[in-house]
């Protein structure tokens, strides 16, 4: 009998010795996506992670400003890497690595925004004491704003693209959607975001706000020639009372005056412990501290790599005495560096070149453009641009007075004569819709020089072939879809490539 008790004991032990619960393990150094979020800090972290691609090399860290500035007529150069010169020469192919990084970094942001929006059920279920309703709304607004922002960057440059609205996809991803569907998502997201986001006055610097969502919504509408919708959006930004133009135009391109009253949406760059090189996004990996921009060393002539010069036409576009000319460019004899102790030479600028970039250059306060990489925030949408876009909308709607008044707000800050005055009528009369348009073209060019506006402006105005001889109609309206995207996808073949590539 004793033996059978032993046997029973042994069998029971055998059957019970293993617990299947032990098989459910999660990465201790990561947060399980299944149960996300548990805390405010987690949700805040996921939102921060959604902003993070803005700083990456493919976007405002390096290649986005090159791509846009080179493809317009604001620049001249034949220096720099082959992948970058492809933009100024219009020789890019589907294997251009910078296009790939632009594509990838935008989709990194979209995936992160989608992840947050996927968890909306989990988030809503959290107690008010963990995350308040107001914060939940604000976070949703940020996720939607950023998703729309990244999709706008993509749809403008690639047309029909894969449209992800959730992270529940296979690694192989989705095939292309029509660009109209992408715009519908963008407009929907921005509309919701503009209702759920906070006002700038109560929001932390650097985050999306109601004003940012409305300004972007207005811009999207303007680009689509939907003027009434654009007007509604811009009017709300203007009437919100949240924004004014800074007294000094150059305050928009310095470290000390970041996130100022003119800033509508701004990508944040920071040195941390002065370790600029270690904090750059080398290779577009978009992880770690990608907290500095390549803008200053890339464009800089005063010790920088000097890979971009302002074009002669751009420098010539300025009216005499326009302080924005001196704010944007260095000329031989100008002083620079700490305390203005150093003097710019023609040799630094280069033989046969009139000016070098001053905008976004650290040499305004340092002795060289290369103390490291730049910590100057990138102003993506500033109020002056909103006013100019609003002026364009009013002009298109036939409201010439309103249009001229908006233009003159920008003129006033520059302390330049107003449009519609006799001295201006000599050069830029504003007697007709066409004349006002010409004034807008001029004003946008001088106000927003080197701010990635000229290329998309010329493109949407149908004027690009007049100014950019390398541009081929029917091809260069869109960038090629990166070859790796086509290669790694089962559903995509060479017929999915954009025309001409």
């Amino acid at each position, binding site marked *: 009998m004793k*033996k059978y008790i*032993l*046997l029973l004991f*042994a069998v029971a032990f*055998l*059957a019970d*010795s*293993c*617990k*299947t619960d*032990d*098989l*459910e*393990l999660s*990465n*201790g*150094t*990561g*947060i*399980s*996506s*299944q149960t*996300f979020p548990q805390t405010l800090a*987690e949700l805040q*972290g*996921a939102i*921060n*992670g*959604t*902003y*993070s691609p*803005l*700083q990456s090399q493919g976007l405002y860290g390096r290649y986005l400003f090159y791509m846009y500035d080179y493809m317009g007529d604001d620049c001249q150069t034949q220096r720099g890497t082959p992948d970058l010169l492809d933009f100024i020469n219009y020789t890019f192919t589907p294997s251009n690595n910078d296009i790939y990084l632009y*594509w*990838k970094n935008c*989709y*990194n942001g979209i*995936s*992160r925004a989608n*992840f947050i929006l996927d968890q909306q059920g989990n988030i809503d279920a959290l107690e008010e004491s963990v995350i308040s309703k107001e914060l939940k709304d604000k976070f949703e607004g940020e996720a939607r704003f950023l998703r729309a922002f990244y999709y706008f960057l993509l749809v403008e440059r690639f047309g029909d*693209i*894969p449209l*992800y609205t959730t*992270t529940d*996809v*296979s*690694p*192989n*991803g989705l095939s292309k959607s029509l660009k109209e569907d992408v715009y519908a998502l963008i407009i929907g997201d921005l509309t919701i975001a503009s209702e759920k986001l906070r006002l700038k006055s109560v929001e932390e610097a650097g985050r999306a706000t109601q004003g940012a969502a409305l300004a972007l919504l207005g811009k999207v509408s303007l680009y689509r020639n939907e003027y009434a919708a654009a007007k509604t959006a811009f009017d709300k930004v203007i009437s919100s009372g949240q924004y004014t133009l800074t007294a000094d135009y150059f305050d928009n391109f310095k470290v000390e005056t970041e996130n100022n009253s003119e800033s509508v949406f701004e990508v*944040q760059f920071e040195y*941390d412990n002065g370790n600029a090189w270690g904090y750059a996004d080398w290779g577009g990996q*978009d*992880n*770690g*501290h990608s907290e500095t921009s390549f803008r200053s060393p890339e464009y800089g002539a005063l010790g920088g790599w000097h890979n971009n010069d302002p074009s002669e036409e751009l420098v010539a576009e300025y009216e005499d005495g326009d302080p924005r000319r001196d704010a944007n460019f260095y000329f031989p004899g100008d002083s620079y560096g700490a305390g203005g102790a150093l003097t710019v030479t023609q040799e630094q600028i280069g033989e046969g070149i009139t000016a070098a970039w001053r905008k976004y250059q650290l040499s305004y306060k340092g002795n060289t453009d290369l103390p490291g990489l730049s910590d100057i925030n990138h102003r993506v949408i500033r109020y002056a641009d909103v006013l100019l876009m609003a002026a364009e909308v009013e002009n298109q709607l036939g409201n010439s007075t309103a249009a001229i008044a908006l233009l003159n707000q920008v003129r006033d800050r520059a302390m330049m004569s107003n449009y519609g005055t006799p001295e201006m009528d000599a050069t830029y009369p504003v007697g007709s819709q066409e004349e006002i348009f010409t004034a807008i073209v001029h004003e946008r060019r001088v106000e927003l020089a080197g701010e990635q506006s000229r290329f998309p402006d010329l493109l949407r105005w149908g004027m690009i072939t007049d100014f950019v001889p390398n541009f081929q109609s029917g091809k260069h309206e869109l960038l090629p879809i*990166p070859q790796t*995207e086509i290669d*790694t*996808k*089962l559903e995509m073949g060479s017929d999915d490539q954009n025309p001409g590539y």
Partner: protein
Amino acid sequence: MKTPIIGWRSFLLLGVLLWQCGFYLSAAPLPNMQQVEVTGTVTDSENVPLPGVNIIVVGTTRGVVTDFDGKYSIAASPGDVLQFTYIGMQSQQLTVGESTTINVTLQGDSNTLDEVVVVGYGTQSRAKVTGAVSTVKAEDISSIPSVNAVQALQGRASGLTVINNGSPGTSPTVRIRGIGTLENNNPVYVVDGIIVDDIANLSAGNIESVSVLKDASTTSVYGSLGANGVVVIKTKTGRKGATTFDFNTYYGVQFKPKELDVLNTDQYIDYASDMILNADPGATLPAVFTDPDFTSNNVNYQDAIFQSGSINNYELSASGGGEHARFRVSGEYQTQDGIVLNTDFDKYTFRLNSEFNKGIFTLGESLGLTYSEQDPLILAFSVSPMENAIRMAPYLPIRDANNIGGYSELTADDINTARNPVRTLNRETQVNKRIDLIGNIYGLVDIFEGLQYKANVGLNFFDNKFKKTELPYGSQGGLHNQAITRFSYVDLRSKTVTFNNSLRYTTTLAENHHIEVLALAEQRKTEITSLSGVGTTDLGINDLASGLSGGAGTTEENRIGYLGRLNYDFAEKYILAASVRRDASSRFGSNKRWGTFPALAAGWVVSEEDFFGEDTVIDYLKLRASWGLAGNDKSAGNYNFESSLLANFFYGNTPGLATNRVSNPDLGWEETEITNIGVDMYLLDNAITFSAEYYNNTSNDLIVALPPAASVGVPNATPTNIGGMTTKGFEFNLGYANQGTEFNWSANLNLSTTDNEVTQLAPNVEQLFNGNKPNVLGNNTISRIAENESLWHFYGWQTDGIFQNQGEVDAHATQAGAAPGDIRFRDVNGDGVINDDDRTVIGNPFPKVTYGLSLDADYKNFDVSLLFTGVSGNDIFNASRYYLDGAAQLSNAGTAVLNRWTPTNPSTTQPRAVLNDPNNNARVSDRYVEDGSYFRLKNISLGYNLPPSVLNVIAADTISKCRVYMSAQNLFTITDYSGYDPEIGPSLGIASVTGDQNSELGVDRGQYPQSKSLVVGLQITF
């Protein structure tokens, strides 16, 4: 053939025995006589009394067991046959003669059917083995001086590939039957029933037996761990009997390796000048080329980094036991100084095995504790000291008192960018301190006759501390300099607790139906924690108390398994085995966590059949076949099936979170279907043993990391069960033993072939290169995986001679940068352009044949043994030749460049030297691919046992055995390979936990060569 196969040996031994006792042996049975009391002592071959030996009078039920001192007493009549049996020993039958004293010496099993083979969760007699199992004997393992027991397995078992590395303390690459997965191919080790990842911590002297399990019927009992094969190790235990002490020691010297022929200073300056002027005829040559302070030097840096080494070992053990308790305790110290400067290894091993029983209860344990310190070979910016030694300018003296630390460095003016390897070896040092605890405690209950319950709890713990120190060197502004001291620390701890419970029922029905049933439940829980830190100081201190920045991490993995197994045989003639294991691993996604691994095997001993003639040369013939599924979860990695949020995406310097991958809840085990067919034969009165196997391993669901489309927006690939490959081959073992009275000799040959092919990668993955590891040369990867090709083949351009003139360049496909004197690369795809698309398969690192041959002989008190190992039919990618004759950049080179192409020397083998190599002559090409076949005398040893007469004089009755020996390793190697050593072991650098190095297989980056060594040793038993 009905005679028991051990018969002939019994008679032989009886003869020896009786002769020794001074009796005359009569062949004819003596007439019937009255029963007498026969007494005697049973001992083993080392004269140690054997308690517990079963003795029966054949044909009767009379039987006794030897006592504590190996003595017995049994009633028998002259002419009766006594049978002595003891597990692990050959049985003997002796006929009772006139004497009433019969002392018997039982011999250990060696490849006989009575050999007890340790298999997964149990033991089997060799006669009942139906799977593919190779065994290695303890004395073979300890015959080669090695600080890692695995090194000594090389050449000893068919199907087992061991690739050694000369670096002291570096574990070799071990593969069973080639490789079966794209990722982790390391076999599983099982020590005393506990699964462990590595046995570097075991000392050879503690190992009693090693079984290599190769087919599904033996490995699938390990479920999701079995597919790469299993090495089962049993450590030595005590036996009943008087306490025995063993003392072993050896000392060996290791000789400096061969050096590669490089240019002397004059040749170097001539070559360098040619190279510089070819690129720019107007260039100014470096001033040092004509500076007598430099040109008068002629430094051979290889000579400076190599040294003669030593290996030294002391081991003392005591074993014994009584009626109810047995023990063995041992301690060992080993030290090895490597043949490269500042590489060495020390190891301290302690082990205690004991077992206690009372009635139906048994309790036992085995516990090993190891502490080791390794000074590994350190790479400088991914370049080995051997490669830097080849590259250094010979005019540069080793030392320069003006530099911090006192070593010279090349400067930008020298153009050559090599780093002084004597400095890197002296100023960049690392020490790895490791504590290993490996042990288990088990309890047995014999519930009733034949039914046994066993619980086994194991703990495997290690703590591995790495500390790297990079002292300042060079001078400020120099090409290579560092003004501060850098430290990096890693502390890695791993703990695995295993718990298994089993019930085993063994019975015999109707005399001949032998049945064994096993039911087992097992769980394993592993936790690995790491702490790491890096810091710098400009103070002259050798450790950092503060100022470190670092990180910490913990990973866990848990596994659960249930096993059922049935073994059946009818009279050891028809043998069947069936098992099924259900296994779950936390590494798999929720949908595929559980797997089922069945196996079936059958054996038929044809020679036991009546129709099998008696008078035949074949004494024994067994046919066997097995089929089954085994799994592998090692390639999955931890947590890789799930998507998790990592806090590494900062915005405004506040941490941001982002998901790392698309999750795959369907991630499951890799599955290998293994079919094995084998035959075992003994011939000519068992003098010849032969076995042959054919195997076919078809792996499905291999894990391929699918890179996400860029638009999916996540950084990491998703592991997916999608790949497939096959590995197949033959294995042969051939043994011959000639047993004489004074002269015995035996020979054993094992030989394996293996052939692998990737059958499927993934629909959108054409090829895989080694992404994370530095498997590149210049900017080209070397090894590749592609469908319908062998794994990790070398992939590059084919060369087609040298352009002798511009006409030849123009006539050839467009090849950017080509000029006369450059290499013509083959336009493989015929598109008229030489580019990446012209790369093709240029070599295969896998040997077609791997073999080992051992010869053992003894004459009177002398014994001699030889072990030859070799491989044939493999290629080596000799990456050192990128520097020796690649001429990609200016560095010292091999003497081959003396015959370089110049307008006046129209070489057809060595291209022109030109700085920056515009034609990219140095690219990955078949230039660097060499035949890797070799044949090596791995070991030769000669021993002498002091005869008892001498021992009695030295120390009466205390010393029972004293053997002195001398051995030599790697005495000669026959090979066409031009590098240091054709045996390309695991890559250099910090040892990783998983240590998988497939993608570097056969790529020689200045390997740490294995040395020739000479050893003297002493073994004493008392």
